[in-house]
């Protein structure tokens, strides 16, 4: 399957003090894309604009080759919000009765099998489910109407490691089909390090970078050095840097090259957290 499941181009939305500025990125089919950024970076705004829940001031969004306003296309998009969005008075059973009247592609058998697999009681009121169970329920709904694109907004935040692991496994299963894709926003970067193929980093409403995760994990590095060595590092090699109590930290795009070029410095692999921190807290070119 060719093409991207999601193409966001030049998305702009202004709210008072906050502005989402010219946000562009893609979610290729068959991949998991992680949208990272600190709280207030614009992740939810980006997802809401991509889903048509808010009207963008500028830019375009193409989902599965069409526009989000297309009802038939919405059948193929599964969405999981950051908090439970189903009324507490309903139950998984009642949701089934509601959604089978809304989605033409609703697969009741699949839904019930997911409920069983996730050990979700079908007749219990949603208000009496735990946070992890509510999140699993939202994922069960998202996976029960033939979705090809899953969009999850902070779906793993606030969950214990076991629940998070289970959800990540479900997402990995989902994306095994080559025409499926996942866009997952999170500030828990360890989750994204486990499953994402690409990372889109948002900061203050702007995309700082969009890169393959493996490039960040296996090529990026942090040079730790003293002031003299820091001064000796080529400006072209520095992506971002900051001064700590006893050393300088410099983010470089190729740690092997940096090791050879600056043999006296310590060059460590960089985690996504460290890359984010250096971009946010440090100085940049």
């Amino acid at each position, binding site marked *: 399957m060719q093409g991207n499941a999601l193409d966001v181009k030049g998305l702009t939305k202004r709210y008072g003090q906050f502005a989402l500025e010219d946000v562009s990125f893609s979610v290729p089919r068959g991949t998991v894309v992680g949208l990272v950024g600190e709280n207030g970076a614009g992740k939810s705004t980006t997802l809401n604009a991509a889903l*048509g829940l808010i009207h963008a001031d500028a830019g375009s969004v193409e989902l599965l080759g069409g526009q989000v306003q297309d009802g038939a296309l919405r059948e193929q998009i599964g969405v999981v919000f950051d908090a439970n969005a189903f*009324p507490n008075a309903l139950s998984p059973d009642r949701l089934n009765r509601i959604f089978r009247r809304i989605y033409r592609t609703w697969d009741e058998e699949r839904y019930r099998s997911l409920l069983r697999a996730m050990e979700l009681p079908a007749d219990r009121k949603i208000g009496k489910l735990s946070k992890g169970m509510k999140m699993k329920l939202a994922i069960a709904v998202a996976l029960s109407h033939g979705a090809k694109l899953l969009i999850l907004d902070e779906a793993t935040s606030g969950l214990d490691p076991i629940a998070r692991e289970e959800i990540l496994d479900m997402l990995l299963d989902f994306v095994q089909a080559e025409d499926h894709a996942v866009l997952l926003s999170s500030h828990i970067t360890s989750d994204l390090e486990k499953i994402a193929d690409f990372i889109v980093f948002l900061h203050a409403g702007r995309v700082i970078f969009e890169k393959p995760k493996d490039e960040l994990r296996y090529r990026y590095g942090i040079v730790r050095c003293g002031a003299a060595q820091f001064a000796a590092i080529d400006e072209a090699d520095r992506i971002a840097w900051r001064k700590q109590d006893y050393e300088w930290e410099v983010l470089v795009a190729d740690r092997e090259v940096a090791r050879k070029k600056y043999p006296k410095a310590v060059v460590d692999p960089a985690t996504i957290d460290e890359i984010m921190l250096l971009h946010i807290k440090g100085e940049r070119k």
Partner: protein
Amino acid sequence: MRGLLLKDFFLVRSVLGILLLVLLVVGSGMSVLTSTWVLTVVSTVMFGMIGVTTIGQDKASGWNRVAGVLPVSPRAVVDSKYVLYLLLSGAGFVLGGFIGMLGALVQAQADGAVFAVISLSIALLSGSVTIPCNFLLGEEKGIVSLIAAYPLSTAIFIGAAAIWRDPLTSGLAVLAVGVALYLTSWLAARALLPRRDAV
């Protein structure tokens, strides 16, 4: 839209049971004190009001975000609330009318037709204000609009009664205004509300 209506029905179902019980108790008491046809007005207004509260519940639960990504148009979401209001008000009207009729069988009552017209007029006038207000305003202000709309509708009715001496004629005139306002409100809401951000 059937799915959206079913969701709202699940939300209001438990409240409807309590309301039914209240109406039966109040109806029994009123049958002794005054005309039971009054219950037609009370139940029509109360049932309709419950329908309007689902708009605030949708906002509070986050359902409005879910509705925004469902394969239904934003207009269908607006339509479902106007239809729900009509269905619930209609159910209240029928129920109140039934109780009124039972009361009329027991003892002679004032003219039921006047109360029927009053019920429908107040329901339509109020709905045309409270439904868009609950979409546009927050939950608290939405409730204020609920509280304000019914006395306002009653005032219009009293005003009309001052012009046309005959209560049935004035009721029919207000009913015509109510129908026109409700339709106008519905059409304006389905044209304007989808332009607003859903979150």
